[in-house]
């Protein structure tokens, strides 16, 4: 199934943020992402790798154009994701991005969250990870926010 192939390929891309663009053009990716141009894919890969937290949304954090995008922004805000570690892209302002991000992520809806170049999920996933504490763990592990719990083993100050 395409979803499985894509997920596997994508997992392989998570860590190497400095992968050269040519390495992204593996035959399996070219096949599963058949609707999206090489150029669009390279631009998105560059975008999700450029900042630890990347949110593709409708509108902007100050003026979200959709309740689900608003919720995603609010959850990231609750967790204190610093502005310099986060970038948002307004898909309503870029119709090519709006289509290509769905193919790139193999995910049909907006918003979409990436952390350290890895796809995390959409609004429902973000909310449930927020409720379960997984989001906090992910953001701490990814170095986006400092550990919050004082009883946490290392007391790193950022």
């Amino acid at each position, binding site marked *: 199934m395409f979803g499985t192939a894509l997920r596997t390929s994508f997992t392989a891309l998570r860590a190497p943020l400095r992968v050269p663009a040519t390495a992204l053009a593996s035959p399996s990716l070219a096949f599963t992402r058949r609707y999206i141009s090489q150029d669009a894919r390279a631009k998105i890969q560059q975008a999700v790798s450029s900042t630890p937290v990347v949110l593709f949304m*409708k509108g902007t954090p100050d003026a979200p154009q959709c309740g689900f995008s608003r919720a995603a922004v609010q959850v990231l805000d609750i967790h204190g994701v610093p502005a310099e570690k986060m970038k948002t892209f307004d898909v309503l302002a870029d119709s090519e991005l709006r289509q290509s991000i769905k193919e790139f992520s193999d995910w*049909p809806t907006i918003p979409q969250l990436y952390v350290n170049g890895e796809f995390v999920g959409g609004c429902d996933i973000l909310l449930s990870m927020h409720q379960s504490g997984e989001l906090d763990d992910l953001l701490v592990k990814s170095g986006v926010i400092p550990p919050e719990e004082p009883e946490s083993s290392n007391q790193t100050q950022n």
Partner: protein
Amino acid sequence: MSTAASDPRESSPVGPIEQSIRAKLTELLRPSQLEITNDSWQHRHHAPMRAAGGGNGETHFSVHVVSGQFQGKNTMQRHRMIYAALSDEFAAGLHALSLKTKAPTEVQPAAQT
């Protein structure tokens, strides 16, 4: 995030997209529980729906599904299974789903409703 006071299914007929979602998810997941709620009316004024003339009344659904097929899969994988199965519906105007996906072992025996 609050749910509707009344169940929209009681007042509005089940449309073709909803029927199709139910059929495909039933076949894919053999769910022990499957609730589909049409939330489209809450999104009529949402910009893309206005652009589509208010939408066709079947643009947004909440789906609550319990299935053994989810065992051992994380939430993203579960959602992807559903999205992959419903690509035709997305192409036909479905805009967004609110998904709650549980494996039978994750459901509290005393769960409400």
